[in-house]
């Protein structure tokens, strides 16, 4: 195939990626968009195979079968609650592949004794650095999300200084490699080793609760690594695709940071969520909560005109998504309206709660974003908070000493009444007391979310 023709067909792939992402602007067209993007990938693979650079197919066929099989199996078997882990792993694999390609190009040049062009050399060093950090960083994120490793920030004295020194060493080695003629494989290996180490070092001080930001950022890195590979092998489609993914990850990381009222720097270097961050600001002593029975709660829900359900990750932990849908169906059958208020950090990654509820057959048009649902609370008869805590804590509005002060929240306190379903009075993720629970409009329904929801459903049915 003439090189020019191959380039033009790669352009078709790039166009399909762009159109695919554009179709993600609505859930109606999104599936079709994903298929278009996949078609673009298939075209890119076929063109590469037909291109003259491929001389043997054995290794390729073996790799495609093994990798494709593993990927397909992972995609089929993963639970929706484990989606953050899955994305973390995929990020890591993408970064790892980019690292290997950059490394192979470096070794190849050494084998033929050809000095690398300076610009190719620079992009190999960059691709190696970013690919390595993505690989090991994602792996640590996976371990933390899977709880194979403590979600607490892992810190040690002079950590930032040490990390900075490691980064400096990598930079020195990379610059040396580029500037000094000759092909020093040992220096390259040392740089790979240090880059892999840097990936670990950068993610261990970040708390489990901040992992959504980390995987979004690593998503961005995996894209940039792919773009660097594009420079190395001089292929535009990699550069376009990598840049698209790079910007996507960055936007998502930013959205998550805003939703937590923190800066990206604070998330990455702040070691938030450790024992030190736990100081509860207002003592709960002397305050009493109103408990409500299942019967009373059922009665209030059955005759409500508008119920706004605020799901938190506790709902998913209790596997209660189907039970909540059942309850919502019953309320609607009784003539009430049901909406779900989704905080951007309600799940363990951006948009996670939406996927979990979609899996339980909750129609997506009942899921309302924070900014759109907040003005509707004054007309809600009941706000039903299930397994959510910090995202409904009014301290974010009225207690400047609170660690979450300034964080945008779901304004449940404006509803006519609130029912909070909770296992116990233990404070949430950030270890902060929630005054909402002590509010006179609030009633607490203690117990396992799934069991309570089923009891509510049974009770309403028998009304």
């Amino acid at each position, binding site marked *: 195939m003439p090189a020019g023709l191959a380039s033009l067909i790669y352009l078709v792939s790039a166009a399909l990626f762009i159109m695919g992402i554009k179709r993600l602007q609505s859930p109606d067209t999104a599936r079709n968009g994903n298929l278009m993007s996949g078609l673009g990938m298939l075209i890119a693979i076929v063109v590469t195979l037909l291109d003259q*650079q491929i001389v043997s197919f054995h290794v390729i066929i073996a790799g495609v079968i093994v990798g*494709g099989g593993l990927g397909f199996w992972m*995609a089929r078997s993963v639970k929706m609650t484990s*989606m953050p882990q899955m994305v973390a792993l995929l990020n890591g694999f993408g970064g790892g592949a980019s690292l290997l390609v950059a490394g192979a190009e470096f070794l190849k040049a050494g084998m033929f004794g050809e000095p690398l062009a300076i610009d190719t050399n620079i992009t190999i060093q960059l691709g190696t650095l970013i690919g390595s950090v993505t690989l090991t960083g994602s792996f640590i994120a996976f371990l933390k999300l899977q709880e194979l490793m403590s979600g607490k920030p892992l810190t040690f004295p002079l950590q930032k200084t040490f990390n900075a020194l490691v980064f400096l060493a990598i930079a020195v080695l990379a610059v040396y490699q580029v500037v000094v003629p000759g092909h020093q494989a040992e220096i390259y290996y040392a740089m790979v080793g240090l880059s892999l180490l840097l990936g670990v070092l950068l993610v261990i001080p970040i708390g489990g609760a901040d992992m959504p930001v980390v995987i979004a950022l690593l*998503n961005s890195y995996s894209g940039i690594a792919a773009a660097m590979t594009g420079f190395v*092998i001089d292929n535009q489609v990699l550069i376009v695709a990598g840049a*698209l993914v790079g910007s996507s990850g960055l936007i998502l990381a930013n959205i998550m940071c805003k939703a937590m009222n923190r800066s990206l720097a604070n998330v990455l270097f702040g070691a938030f969520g450790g024992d030190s961050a736990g100081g509860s600001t207002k003592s709960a002593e002397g305050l009493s909560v109103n408990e409500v029975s299942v019967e009373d709660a059922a009665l209030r829900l059955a005759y409500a005109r508008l119920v706004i359900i605020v799901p938190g990750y506790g709902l998913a932990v209790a596997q209660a998504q189907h039970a909540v849908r059942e309850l919502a169906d019953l309320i609607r059958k009784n003539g009430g309206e049901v909406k779900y208020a989704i905080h951007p950090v309600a799940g363990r990654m951006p948009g996670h709660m939406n996927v979990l509820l979609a899996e339980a*057959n909750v129609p997506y048009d009942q899921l309302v974003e924070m900014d759109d649902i907040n003005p509707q609370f004054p007309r809600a008869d009941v706000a039903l908070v299930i397994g959510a805590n910090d995202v409904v804590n009014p301290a974010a509005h009225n207690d400047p000493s609170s660690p979450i002060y300034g964080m945008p929240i779901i304004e449940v306190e404006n509803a006519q009444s609130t029912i909070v379903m909770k296992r116990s009075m233990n404070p949430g993720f950030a270890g902060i007391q929630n005054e909402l629970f002590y509010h006179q409009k609030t009633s607490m329904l203690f117990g396992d979310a799934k069991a309570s929801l089923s009891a509510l459903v049974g009770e309403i049915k028998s009304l």
Partner: protein
Amino acid sequence: MTESVILGIVVFTLATFLGFELIQRVPPTLHTPLMSGSNAISGITIVGALIIAGGDFGWISQAIGFAAVVLAMINVVGGYSVTDRMLRMFRKDSESS
């Protein structure tokens, strides 16, 4: 700098701007599929992996190529299929039984 690198930088910059424009319009409800789907797109590095694995540069290079193809294929196949699995679940109210 060679002309192809300059061209690459131009393409990279324009594609980044395009990415920002496109992705800001993706609604939050689709952010998880966006992440897994864009993840699959970053598997485009498969192109480089195939070239390494299919080249005749000795066994070391082929071993690296094999590993690269495996990782990139997991990324591509896993990313697209899990995204499809999620997007199939999204449905509108009117479609409910």
